[in-house]
Each structure stands twice: as structure tokens, then as C-alpha cells.
């Protein structure tokens, strides 16, 4: 019979086992290892840490001479190290702090990495206070790749034990942590933008000025570079599918911005709208987050690669149609619309209306909305970026609407005496009871409603404008039905019209009152007009509106036919004068901006873009460089700085028969839009060199001085060859 083990012995064994198991575990995992051509160790800047106070754990990768490890984006080949920290205790681990890498050429490829010993630090905090007085073990699961030309992958699990106390103590490795911090990017992340074309990416960010000193100490060379403003910036993309890593990067500075021209990767993701970069001068650097230049981005998408229309689900479509319908209802309450339909509603008589009379208003509204929809779809198909109220960008339309609204206000105020014919006209058109008058009211209501975008409508229209044509039509028709519903109900049924207040003298007062929202709309239109033209023209427009009002009033006073005709002619002139001047002003404005953009020494040579002038120059066998640019276009700025303002190009542009034509697409206009569509472009830059009518050459979107100069000289040769020699100069 065996004697049972005494319980004290049993307990002792258990306790020993527990104690040693922790110890054994720690001993199994070392803090250092070595693989072929590399030594790897796990370090901390502290050997005694305080709970909840962050410290650093770092993985020191020490490759042999000439061997290297990789940055977060390894470049053309290779692989970034992967570090996963864990602990049985509760810890918080931050992101790897990647020091500024170097570009390491391998044959004709480039890798981003570190050729010397590199410490990859991670901020860590121990959350568990109960560890005070004991130790915390941090385990690192690592994988790395070390390469010379050949590459050797490695894996290891290392561990590090740190004391936990109320007072922290630095470890023997603190110095390498401090040294590594000097090699980290600046703590401030900067913002910039980028643009993409078929071959390149262009980055733009505000200059790093002398005042904008890095929070990092610069070495003597950097200070010098800072002083001269000549940083040798290099852009390291975080992603490996953005740029061609081996391609040279071009860096440009102007007063405000630094721009970098980077050949784009074969694997470039055209749907990306945001990229992060490390911009480095070799010693230090900063992180730059760039967003796509929306102006350019939109143009690119609409033409080059039209994005597939978003497919709306049936429910979504239904929701949008409902929204459009409600938006249409709300439109009735807009200050420009309400007066017109109020008059109509009040004057409504229900004396055996025919079906045509009942539905004429609805027809007018629906037809008008569909015309708008078709116009928008057609313009969109041609690649133009337009939206609801696109016609409001035309000063001529603004002028016409201003006169129309003024006229309606006069009608409402009864400024036109009864029996003058004009009043009858107004009466007939707006408040008459015939089918054609209802129809016209519908059309008029849509026209005046068009500038007032009800908030509901904006979303639905936005969807319509980016969707298939049939979706646009559905939404526009829902809008039309919503818009027409209240009035159509009144027309259709006397039950609804009974809800209207009883007619009486108050109606006259109410009608007069409604004139004022109309005049308010005129004030708004005149303000819009100022944005499109200038103060002088605005003054002229206001004067003409007043003269027009006076002429209308005079017309009604007069009884002689000849005098009436004279008034009509003058009234027409009132409308014609600002219309004419506003169309000519836009040209001279373009002239101003074009001249401002160009270099001063080129000033005399710059011709603002005009298709007529271009054609006549071509007919004369002249050489013309056409430059379509915009203030917001980053690529355009780069090309101006690098190529168009270079001495080589200026020399090439110097001959008498060479002309430089600049179109400014900053405030999109139709003339330039037409030109761009000729070349199937929806945006700038666009550069074309003409040799008379003989030849034309579309230049790439990234220019070099030689490329432009050669194209001009080439065109010169062609135009000289083709122009028949002047008989007088023949021997």
C-alpha cells in the first residue's frame, strides 16, 4: 500500500512549477537573434517603466555592410519588416515610427530602405497598475527581409522583460533611441494636393519657409539649403503603386508652392483620391497628405475615363423620385414663383373649363422641364460639367431674366394702365383663362423657378446629373409633376379652388404686394450679373431697367401708334445695350487674365484665345502655340515654370510669324470648352502647335523646354515649306 503524498509537498511542487514556468518562458524567448547577414534585437529606451506612461520598444535591424532592410514601402522589390508586439499584460501599442529612408538603386530599379543599422520604434504603454514592483514581458513577432542584391527573409519571436515601478529608469540603449528620433519625419503632418495625367503625377504643397523651421535639428547642409530655399526634396510614396520609384523626380519652387513632377507607376490606381508621402531632403523630412485637385479630378473623370454611372437600386431611385416630387412642391413657394402662380390662382374662373384648359398648365411645366433635362443630358454627353441653373452662368440670360422680372413687377403693380394693350398682354399671358395662357404660365413658372434651387431638389438633381439619361428624365419629370401639382389641382377641380379665399378688393392689394418679391429677385439677378461682368456694366443694367420701366409706362400713356412704336424700339435698345456690352466684356476680361498669367517679357506676344483670330492666323500660314490653362491647374503652373517661360521657348516664340495664344479656363467658358472638346479633352492643360492649316501637333501634358521649342521650330519648317514663295522675291 502506497503512502499518499503529504499535502504540503504537493503544494510546494505546484508553487515551484508556477514560479519556474514564468522563468522558463522568459528564458525560451531571447531579446536577440541573428539571421544570415543580419542581427536583430528587441530594445527599449527604459528598463524600468511606469504604468500608463508611454515609452518606446524598438527593433534594431543591423544588416552586414552593403546589405539593407526596407522602409514601409519597399519600392520596386523587397518587403517591409513586420513587427507585432504583444504581452500577457494589458499594453497599448502605437504605430511603427519609420525613420527617413534612402533610395537604394538596384540595377535599373530602386528600393526604399536602410543600409545601416536601423531602429524601428513603437510607442508602448503598460496599462496594468497591478504589475507595480514586478516585471512586464513584451513579445515581438518579427519578419524581415535583408538584401544586398540577393534577398534573405527571416522570422523570429523575441521578448523583452521590463521592471514596472513608480519611477522610470533609462536603459543602456537610450542613446540609440534618441539618435533615431532625429531621423524621424517632422511631427507636423502637412497637407497638399496632387493632379494626375496619363504619364505623371504632380504634387503641390506650400513652401517650407525659413520661419517654418522643422522641429528637428538640421545639420549644417540643411541650414544652408534652407537659407537658399533650395531643398533637394524627394517624395517617398507610402504606397508602392503610385510612382515609378526609379524615375528621376523634378522639383520646382515658386514664391508660394513647391511642386514635384513624378512619373506615375504602371500600377497606378486611378480611383485613388488621397496619397500620403514622406517628403525628405535626405536628412529629415515630413509627412505630406495630398488630396486630388478636385477641379482637375472632375474634368479628368468626365472625359478621359468616364466613370461608370452609379447603379441606383430601385428603392434608391424611388426615394430620389419622391424627393424630386417634394422638391417640386416646395418650389411653388419660392419668392420668384409664388407671385406668378398666385395671380393665376386668384384669377381662376371655373366656367366650364375644357380638358385642354385644365391640363395646359401641367403640359407647359412638364414640357419645359423636359426641355431642360434634354439640354442638360446633351451638354453632359458632350463632356461639359454643368448642373441645374447652368444657364445662369450666362450674363445674357441674367439680363433677360432681369427685364422679365421687372416687367412682371410692373404688371403686378398695375403700372400699365388698363386697355393699353400691354396690360392686356400681361393679363392674357399670366392671368388669362385660355389654354394657351395656362400653358404660358407653366412655362414662365419653370423659367423663373430655375434659379431657385430648393434644398430637396439639389440632391435629386445631383443624382440625375451623374446618372443615366433615363434616370435624369425620371427625376426631372417627378420634379415637374410636383411643381405642377398644386396649380393643376386648382385647374382640374372646383373643389380645390373653393379653398381659395373669396375674391374682393384685397386681391388688388395682394397683387401689388407680390410685386416686391419680384423686385427683390431683380436685385439678386443684378448682383449675380456683377460677378460675371463689372461695376460699370452693372450700373448700366440698372439704368436700363429703370429706363425700360419708364418706357413701358410711357407706352401705356400714349395713344398714337407711331409714338408707341418708338417706345418699343427704345425699350428693345435698353435690353440690347447691356446684352451687347456684356458679351464683349467677357473677351476683354479673358485678355486681362491671360496677360497677367504670362511672363512679362512675353506680354506683347500673348494673344488671348479667340477662335476667329486663331483661324485667321492659321489661314495666314502662321505658327501658333495654343496654351489652355487655369489658375487652379497645378500641372499648368509646372509647365509654365519649366517650359513655357524658359529662354528656349521664348526664343522659339520670338519670330514675327510665331504667335502665342493663351486661353484661361479658370472660369469655364463656352469658347474654350468648344476648343477642348475638339481635342476630346474635358480639362486643362492642353497645348497645341499649329503650322498654319498644314499641320497641328498636340503636345503632351508634361512639357520640357526642348519639346516645346522643337515643336515650334518643326511647325515653322512645315509652314515655310507649304507657303508658296512670293513671286517678287523669286530671282
Amino acid at each position, binding site marked *: 500500500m502506497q503512502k499518499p503524498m503529504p499535502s504540503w509537498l504537493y503544494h510546494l511542487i505546484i508553487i515551484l512549477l508556477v514560479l519556474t514556468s514564468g522563468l522558463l518562458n522568459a528564458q525560451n524567448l531571447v531579446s536577440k537573434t541573428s539571421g544570415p547577414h543580419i542581427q536583430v534585437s528587441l530594445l527599449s529606451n527604459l528598463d524600468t517603466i511606469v504604468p500608463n506612461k508611454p515609452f518606446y520598444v524598438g527593433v534594431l535591424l543591423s544588416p552586414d555592410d552593403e546589405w539593407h532592410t526596407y522602409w514601409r514601402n519597399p519600392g*520596386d*522589390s*523587397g*518587403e517591409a519588416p*513586420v513587427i507585432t508586439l504583444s504581452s500577457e499584460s494589458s499594453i497599448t501599442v502605437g504605430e511603427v515610427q519609420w525613420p527617413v529612408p534612402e533610395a537604394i538603386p*538596384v*540595377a*535599373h*530599379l530602386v*528600393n526604399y530602405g536602410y543600409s545601416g543599422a536601423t531602429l524601428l520604434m513603437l510607442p508602448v504603454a503598460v496599462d496594468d497598475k497591478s504589475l507595480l514592483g514586478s516585471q512586464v514581458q513584451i513579445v515581438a513577432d518579427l*519578419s524581415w*527581409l535583408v*538584401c544586398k*542584391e*540577393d*534577398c*534573405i*527573409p527571416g*522570422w523570429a519571436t523575441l521578448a523583452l522583460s521590463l521592471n514596472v515601478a513608480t519611477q522610470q529608469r533609462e536603459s543602456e540603449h537610450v542613446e540609440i533611441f534618441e539618435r533615431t528620433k532625429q531621423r524621424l519625419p517632422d511631427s507636423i503632418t502637412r497637407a497638399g494636393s496632387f493632379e494626375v495625367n*496619363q*504619364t*505623371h503625377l504632380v504634387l503641390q504643397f506650400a513652401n517650407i519657409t525659413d520661419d517654418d523651421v522643422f522641429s528637428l535639428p538640421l545639420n549644417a547642409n540643411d541650414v544652408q539649403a534652407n537659407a537658399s530655399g533650395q531643398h533637394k526634396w524627394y517624395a517617398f510614396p507610402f504606397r*508602392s*503603386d503610385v510612382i*515609378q520609384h*526609379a*524615375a*528621376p523626380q523634378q522639383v520646382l519652387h515658386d514664391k508660394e508652392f513647391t511642386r514635384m513632377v513624378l*512619373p506615375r*507607376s*504602371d*500600377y497606378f490606381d486611378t480611383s485613388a483620391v488621397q496619397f500620403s508621402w514622406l517628403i525628405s531632403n535626405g536628412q529629415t523630412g515630413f509627412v505630406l497628405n495630398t488630396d486630388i485637385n478636385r477641379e482637375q479630378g472632375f474634368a479628368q473623370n468626365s472625359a478621359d475615363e468616364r466613370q461608370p454611372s452609379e447603379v441606383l437600386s430601385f428603392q434608391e431611385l424611388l426615394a430620389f423620385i419622391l424627393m424630386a416630387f417634394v422638391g417640386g412642391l416646395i418650389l411653388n413657394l419660392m419668392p420668384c414663383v409664388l407671385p406668378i402662380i398666385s395671380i393665376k390662382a386668384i384669377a381662376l374662373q371655373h366656367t366650364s373649363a375644357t380638358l385642354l384648359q385644365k391640363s395646359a398648365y401641367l403640359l407647359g411645366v412638364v414640357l419645359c422641364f423636359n426641355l431642360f433635362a434634354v439640354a442638360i443630358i446633351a451638354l453632359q454627353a458632350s463632356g461639359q460639367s454643368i448642373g441645374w441653373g447652368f444657364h445662369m452662368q450666362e450674363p445674357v440670360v441674367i439680363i433677360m431674366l432681369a427685364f422679365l422680372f421687372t416687367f412682371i413687377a410692373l404688371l403686378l403693380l398695375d403700372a400699365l394702365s388698363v386697355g393699353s394693350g400691354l396690360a392686356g398682354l400681361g393679363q392674357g399671358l399670366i392671368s388669362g383663362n385660355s389654354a394657351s395662357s395656362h400653358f404660358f404660365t407653366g412655362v414662365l413658372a419653370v423659367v423663373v423657378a430655375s434659379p431657385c434651387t430648393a434644398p430637396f431638389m439639389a440632391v435629386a438633381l445631383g443624382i440625375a446629373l451623374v446618372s443615366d439619361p433615363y434616370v435624369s428624365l425620371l427625376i426631372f419629370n417627378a420634379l415637374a409633376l410636383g411643381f405642377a401639382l398644386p396649380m393643376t389641382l386648382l385647374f382640374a377641380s372646383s373643389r380645390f379652388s373653393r379653398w381659395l379665399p373669396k375674391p374682393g378688393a384685397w386681391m388688388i392689394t395682394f397683387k401689388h404686394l407680390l410685386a416686391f418679391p419680384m423686385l427683390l429677385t431683380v436685385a439678386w439677378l443684378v448682383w449675380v450679373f456683377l460677378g460675371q461682368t463689372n461695376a460699370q456694366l452693372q450700373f448700366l443694367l440698372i439704368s436700363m431697367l429703370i429706363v425700360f420701366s419708364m418706357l413701358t409706362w410711357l407706352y401705356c400713356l400714349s395713344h398714337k401708334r407711331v409714338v408707341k412704336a418708338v417706345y418699343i424700339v427704345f425699350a428693345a435698345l435698353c435690353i440690347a445695350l447691356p446684352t451687347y456690352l456684356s458679351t464683349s466684356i467677357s473677351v476683354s476680361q479673358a485678355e486681362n487674365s491671360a496677360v497677367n498669367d504670362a511672363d512679362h517679357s512675353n506680354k506683347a506676344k500673348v494673344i488671348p484665345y479667340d477662335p476667329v483670330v486663331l483661324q485667321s492666323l492659321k489661314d495666314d500660314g502662321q505658327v501658333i502655340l495654343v496654351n489652355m490653362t487655369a489658375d487652379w491647374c497645378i500641372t499648368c503652373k509646372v509647365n509654365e515654370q519649366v517650359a513655357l517661360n524658359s529662354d528656349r521657348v521664348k526664343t522659339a516664340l520670338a519670330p514675327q510669324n510665331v504667335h502665342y495664344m493663351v486661353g484661361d479656363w479658370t472660369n469655364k467658358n463656352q469658347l474654350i470648352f468648344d476648343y477642348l472638346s475638339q481635342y476630346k479633352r474635358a480639362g486643362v492643360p492642353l497645348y497645341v502647335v499649329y503650322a498654319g492649316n498644314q*499641320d*497641328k*501637333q*498636340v*503636345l*503632351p501634358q*508634361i512639357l*520640357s523646354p526642348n*519639346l516645346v521649342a522643337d515643336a515650334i521650330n518643326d511647325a515653322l519648317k512645315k509652314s515655310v515649306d507649304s507657303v508658296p514663295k512670293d513671286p517678287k522675291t523669286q530671282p
Partner: protein
Amino acid sequence: MFRKLGLKNVFLVFATLAISVAASAKVNIDQAAPDFSLLNSNGETVSLSDYRGQYVVLEWTNHLCPYVQKHYDSDNMQSLQRKYNDKDVVWLSIISSAPGKQGYVDAQQANELSDTRNADPTHVLFDPEGEVGKQYAAKTTPHMYVIDPAGALKYAGAIDSIKSANPADIAKADNYLDLSLTALLAGEKVAQTLTPPYGCSIKYKG
């Protein structure tokens, strides 16, 4: 007139590319894949154009590269070769390692490698000058391309979605080559036509 203009544009684009991106070709999905003729491991000349009418896989390889080893030691690459051999797909393994550099082998060694690794490519081709590699802008081993029966490039990039040398990741990754070929053989569009390749740099000459 218009055709002339088009040609000139193409020329200009190429000229600029040549200036800005020395020695780097362009990978153009849905465009004609550049034709080439290389010697195979049996000393015969093989041209891409020989295989018009069939799908062709180009695989840049280097048997000493750990990323290639990941896919060969796990039988991943060979099983893809076998799978698509059965579907009449041509598989060309191309070695662009220059003589004296890692991964360079002679014809006999290449055949031995195929035997010992149980690999089954249609041909192993030698590109010691690196010209074909540069034509295709091949960067890493492995770097995979798929060309359709009309000779148009349909896929270029990584073999799968997890950039590592760890064979354990193969099962977890999306195999882009397999997905592309499956889609193409089913008459569908390739979902991801371009992915950044990963692996060892190709040991080009110079």
C-alpha cells in the same frame, strides 16, 4: 490628316517617356503585348507570336529568390501550371538573371530544376540581356503576366495579394493569376488587371 496626327501624338508620348523614364517600358492592359523571341532550355527559339490563339502566362522567375521558393516549395506555382496546362494555356517561365547573377542557370540546370521541382511550364526561356524583362517592365520574381489569344495583355502584377516570403500566407491570399485566368476562360472581365508585384528584384545585367 487625322491619322497622321494620331501617329505623331503616339510618337511624342513615347519621346517624352523615353526622356523622363530611361529604360522603363510601359505596361498597358488591353494593349498588344510586345512580341519577343528567346531561346528555351532545349535550345529552340520560342516567340510569343507562336501562341496566337491561346492564352499565355509569363512568369519571371529566379529559383534562388525566397519569394519564388515560397511558391515552388509549397507546390503552389506547379499546381497552377498543371491546372492551366489542362486548359490549353501556354506557360512561359522567363529567367532574366544575367550570367554570374543570382538565378542565372544554363539550359541543363533549367531542365534539372523543372524535374526536381516537378514544374511543368510549356517552356523555360532565357533573357540574359534583360531586354524582354525591360520590355515588359518586369521588376520582381515572381512577376506574372497574362496575354489573351489576340495577343493583348490582360493581367500584370503580383501572383497573389499577400506580400511575404512566408508559405503559410499562400492559403490566406487571393491568387490574382488564378482569378484572372479563371475570369478570362469563363469569358468574363478580369477584376484586378494591375497589381504591384512583390518579391526579389530581377537580377538584370549591369
